[in-house]
């Protein structure tokens, strides 16, 4: 279950940075990136950028008007977003943007994208999970620990060691516990008790659990990519989609793909009934299906598909295309009936979406 998105924003803010501001900065012997108009809107497209290039950006898109602003974070704040934007979530009128290789989480006003605070000096942050009004977890690719912070004051308050598991990735609230997937060269889901901030149990799944979602029946769906490439020292096996019963903490069902297939970026609709993932296109599967779909619902041959999202408001499907991973990416928007609605040109390597309801 995602963090609930409670902020309502209909107000569109248009700002234009004056040329004189740029000149002032130039006279101060420095330059800032170009600062286009800003709008805040219903969909944020996370454009990862390239590792060690520093060119991550955020695109703001208003589905009702079709207006978009690329580089919206830079436009709102006058600074670069950073290196490799990994994820974003919105909770209680605050957006939390995790920038992995800059070691920072920005807390922003989702209506304006202006920074309200930041959590810095993180090793390699990946995902942000709000546990309560005063507690949040930040998973990490390298730290062998989950950082505990206060999402209101942006102060660190502790950490949860993940002994034997150097990395944690996506997190999921399952009942009173938090599930944390160990996706890098690992095959475990850690179960955390947030009342004591400690790992209390683990579930063994397939190699590299990269995505998790919770369906309407309270089952946890876990997508394991199987290692991703032949020769991976961690192993190489067929990707698997696994369904876990949280009560027994056991795997109930397993769907195994062919060895060599690449399956990624799983998400679920707001009703918790249909999951979506990338597998040679976008595939959709009902939680009651007995086998994965044989064909994609959206097939874009030769494209560099890198992300998929489903708008909880209307089930519109957003598909991210990184093209060749070193140029402006594309986002294709379809309605729930799979009719094309819009195509956006966005930043480099669009990888995910955050919907502000």
């Amino acid at each position: 279950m995602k963090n609930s998105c409670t902020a309502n924003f209909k107000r569109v803010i248009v700002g234009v940075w004056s040329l004189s501001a740029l000149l002032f900065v130039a006279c101060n012997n420095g330059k800032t990136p170009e600062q286009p108009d800003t709008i805040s809107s219903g969909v944020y497209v996370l454009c990862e950028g390239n590792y060690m290039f520093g060119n991550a950006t955020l695109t703001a898109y208003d589905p009702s008007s079709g207006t978009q602003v690329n580089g919206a974070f830079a436009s709102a704040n006058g600074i670069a977003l950073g290196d490799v934007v990994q994820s974003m979530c919105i909770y209680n009128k605050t957006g939390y943007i995790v920038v992995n290789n800059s070691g920072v989480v920005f807390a922003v006003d989702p209506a304006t994208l202006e920074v309200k605070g930041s959590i810095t000096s993180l090793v390699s942050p990946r995902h942000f999970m709000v546990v309560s009004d005063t507690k949040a977890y930040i998973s990490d690719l390298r730290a062998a620990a989950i950082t505990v912070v206060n999402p209101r004051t942006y102060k660190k308050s502790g950490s949860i060691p993940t002994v034997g598991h150097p990395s944690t990735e996506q997190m999921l609230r399952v009942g009173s516990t938090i599930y944390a997937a160990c996706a890098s060269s690992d095959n475990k889901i850690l179960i955390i008790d947030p009342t004591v901030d400690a790992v209390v149990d683990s579930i063994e799944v397939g190699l590299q659990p990269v995505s998790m979602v919770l369906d309407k029946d309270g089952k946890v769906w876990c997508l394991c990519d199987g290692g991703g490439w032949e020769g991976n020292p961690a192993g190489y096996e067929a990707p698997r989609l696994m369904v876990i019963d949280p009560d027994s903490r056991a795997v109930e069902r397993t769907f195994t793909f062919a060895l060599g297939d690449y399956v990624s970026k799983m998400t679920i609709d707001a009703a918790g009934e249909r999951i979506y993932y990338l597998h040679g296109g976008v595939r959709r599967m009902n939680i009651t299906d007995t086998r994965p779909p044989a064909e994609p619902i959206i097939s874009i041959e030769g494209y560099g598909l890198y992300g998929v999202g489903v708008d909880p408001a209307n089930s519109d499907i957003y598909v991210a295309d990184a093209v060749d991973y070193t140029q402006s990416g594309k986002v294709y928007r379809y309605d729930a009936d799979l009719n094309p609605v819009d195509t956006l040109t966005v930043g480099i390597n669009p990888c995910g979406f955050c919907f502000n309801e």
Partner: protein
Amino acid sequence: MNIDTVAVTAHSPMTQIGITTTIVDTTLLRSNPIAPLSEILAQNTTLFIKSYGRATLSTASFRGTSPSHTQVFWNGIRINSPLLGMVDFSMIPSGFVDRMTVLHGGASLQQSSGGMGGTLLLDTQPLFRRGAEIRYVQSIGSFATFDELAEIRLSGNNLESSTRLSLASSRNDFRYTNLRKKIYINDDEGNLVDSYHPVERNRNGEFRDLNLLQEFNFRTHGGNRISLGAWLTDSQRGVPVMNIDYRDSNTSKALSEVRSLRAVASWERLMTNGKCLLRTGWNSSDMRYAYWGDMGDGNLTQMIDSRTLFNSLTLHAEGEWAPTEKFVLSATLSAEASGVEMPERHHRIESSAAIWARYRLSERLGAAAIARQELIDGHWSPTVPALYLDYLLFRPWGVVLKASAVGNFRSPTLNDLYYQPGGNPNLSNERGLTFETAVGLSFEGRRWSISGEAALYDSQIRDWILWLGTQRGFWTAVNIERVHSYGAELKAHGQVVVGPNTKISLSGFHTITHAINNSAPSSAADRSQGKQIVYIPVHTSALTAGISIGNWSASYKWNHVGERFTTTNNDVATLYSRVEPYFLNDITASYAHTFRWGSANIRLGVNNLFDRYYETVLFRPMPGRNYSIALELRWKKFNNISDKRQNQSELSR
């Protein structure tokens, strides 16, 4: 520096028929022996040097090609990494090079295949001045930067020993106002109370580079020359963080270590009508990358420790026969065996044979032709031909017209083939065809000289190897269909003697480089076709003005690099899709004094004179105005009058 003006008139050497070369003046190399070679190249040649700052990876792009398309030879052995195909010029102190020759474009085939952009020849040269020479250079610069060079030459009648030691170290922690990020201050309730651009120091940029070169040269009156040389490099460098990094030094640290050994042994016999040469060389490198991070306990714990090794053994034989003044025939035979550990082991054996004929048809017209054939791991490459012509258009001004048509190819590096994940063992060789024309002139009066050259080139390179991202989160090597590289190189040099001890010089170059991806789009969304390859500037320029009055000299250097795209579709509307163009200005002033025992030279330098903010690579901070002072001492004792006179001339430089 004062050099007696000497009028030189000669036909261009047979080796120069139809080719474009740049010979970097020896005096230039010796005037700043502690500077890394990357700086000398950037200011004085048409190579574009992409660098992340001092003591960071500095690679060359020649005529719009990639770093692995520039072949680099040190005393006749190739020093390109068989793993990555490139050379890091920041690791080569210019004091270890006595002569540098740049073979532009098709001229590279004279030396080897693979130099789609060109080839760089770095050579040391024995002097055979009987006696002893000691040179010591000490430089101190901004950001706690220390450079030292010590050189000892001991020469007998026919034997010379040369020892050179170079040490460079720096904290490299220059200060700058970071406009790319902000620090946000919140009260205990989380309300934002302040934000500001921090004044920061370049973090993790410290380095320590040690280089040691030992050579022995032996010659006989029968025309035999034997050379032995070994060059050891030991480098420890931090990996500078980007200016959008919000971690502090307590949270992360990265280190790069390189230990390399290059050795060469050669025997050459000069005869009346030719020469023969046998050479063997060794090139090895041990590279380590380590990363430490805070595991949440406040201590730095090592998280990454990656090691890569390569070794390369070269055997080379060469013969040259010149039955007349107008005709020279050469043949070469080479073999290179390379092995890498990355960590799995891979090997490759490359053999090459070439035959080269040069003929001066008339006093004005010269022609040369080359055919080169390679055998790589048992697979024959296509025969690569080249044809060169030059014609003396106007003798009084030394105006020469050159033209060439050159084929070339380059095999994938071992990294391209075998790196996991992403290496592609099915890669094809790159193939190229280059047409080039150039016109040069050179004329002089009693007190002045002017020379210049303008070259136009057009290259088509097929199956260019490029690393592209994949859905699976890693990059992979692929052949892209075609890259069209074309452009122009303009260079000029002028010098005038205005008084008995006063000389003024001006030199500069401008390059126009179009490196266009002409491959078919990978999908309907792909907009890279017809666009400039990333990080290749269309325009680069440099200008150096110098004046010397007696023992005083000064120079002013101006350098310009045009915009570079960072995306394959060159879309300027995309944020961070380009790196801004920049201009840099440097000045130096020096004073030399000759003593009975030798000489001393003191040199002051100011780099980035106008304290410009600039980036050579996105989000990599570069230093503002910075200073250096260097003292050079030379002591010489000769056993022979002629050697002493030659030395006097050199001491006064």
